[in-house]
């Protein structure tokens, strides 16, 4: 009778390759579990921290809102001041330079040019009625005005010329400013 008798019962003989695979699986499983625990724990801890920050911020917000509620009377005054200051600023900024225009026009006067009337309007139109002594004086007057024409005026119109008995002229000029 031949045959082997194995005195070591229920012993499994595992090959080296199988053993290494088994070790690898357990190692990977451990790493996976470790990573999982780290991620789960980290996210929970981070969320708790954010909650704490949020609660503190909410407390600060409540506090500042309460302060603002107590300052409601001041808010009315501030809004009033803002409303007025905005409008005042517009009024001052948009003022038409009457005195500058007036000074310019009255400085056209000399011994040969006499102003009868000046009209100024915030629609950027000036009108002047002048008595000029003669034609050369009229040329001189128009040349003076035309000198600054490009910088100052959109239109310069001579509306009328009325000859007087003594060869002087009454001129109506209209200037439209830029």
């Amino acid at each position: 009778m031949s045959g082997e008798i194995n005195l070591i019962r229920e012993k499994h003989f595992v090959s080296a390759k199988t053993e290494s695979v088994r070790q690898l699986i357990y190692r990977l499983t451990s790493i996976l579990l470790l990573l999982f625990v780290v991620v789960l724990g980290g996210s929970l801890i981070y969320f708790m921290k954010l909650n704490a920050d949020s609660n503190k911020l909410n407390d600060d917000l409540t506090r500042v809102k309460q302060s603002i509620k107590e300052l409601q009377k001041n808010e009315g005054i501030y809004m009033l001041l803002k409303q007025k200051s905005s409008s005042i600023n517009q009024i001052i900024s948009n003022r038409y330079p009457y005195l500058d225009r007036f000074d310019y026009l009255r400085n056209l006067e000399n011994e040969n040019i006499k102003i009868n009337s000046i009209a100024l309007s915030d629609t950027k139109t000036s009108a002047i009625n002048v008595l000029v002594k003669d034609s050369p004086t009229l040329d001189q007057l128009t040349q003076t005005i035309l000198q600054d024409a490009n910088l100052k005026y959109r239109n310069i119109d001579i509306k009328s010329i009325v000859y007087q008995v003594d060869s002087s002229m009454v001129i109506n000029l209209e200037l439209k400013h830029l």
Partner: protein
Amino acid sequence: MKIASFFTGIIGAYVIGFLTLIVVVIISFTVIIPKIHDIQAKKQEISENRELFVKLERKKTLLTSIEKSDTVKFIEDALLALPSEKDAASVLIAFRNISAQTEFGIDSIDLSPGIVSTASGEQAVLTTPKSEKRNGADVYPISITGRGKINQLTDFIRTLENSRRLFDLSDLRITYSQEDHEFVLVNMTLETYFLPPITQLSTIESQLSEITPDERNTLTKISVFPPLSTNLDASLTDTEFGTNTAIFGGQP
């Protein structure tokens, strides 16, 4: 023993690995991923609240600044410059004072503020159909005729423009006297402003519109303008002021 030997075997290893993977996946989907969404939402909420907090702190600082003395002065000056009501009386006082100061004579004043009081004596609703708006405020027109020397006229206009009660010239017609070329007759149309106050406050969380540096500079500028629309000299009488008035559009 069979169970123990099962798990020590290769099949057991695979089973353990697979079960672990299943557990990790299930917990990831049920706990970690929702938690990540919660974290993102919480961060967004914190970011918004932080922004709101900064704005509200700024609002609180602005509201507290009202109590400072220079801000109180600004408020007084702004109310004088741009009253909340039509206040025709202060307009007349201003012209009287400017006329007296510059010695430019006013022959007539014609102003049409519209309703200044209701029949019950209460203040009228502050806007009327005649009220126009310009530069963000309500306006009503005033016509003045006057006379004086040219330098008195220029002083009058300059003083008008530098009066703390705000007026704007809209039309100026100057006729030179034939007898004395330094003497002029003037018709001018002015506009005077008033601005009814805001009556409704915003919510606590809404931001205040801040006063800009330009606006602050303008308030500083007008604070040095003389307050000509208050009674400066009680000794001035109506006869010194002018011969004719046509208040509220009536004939002089």
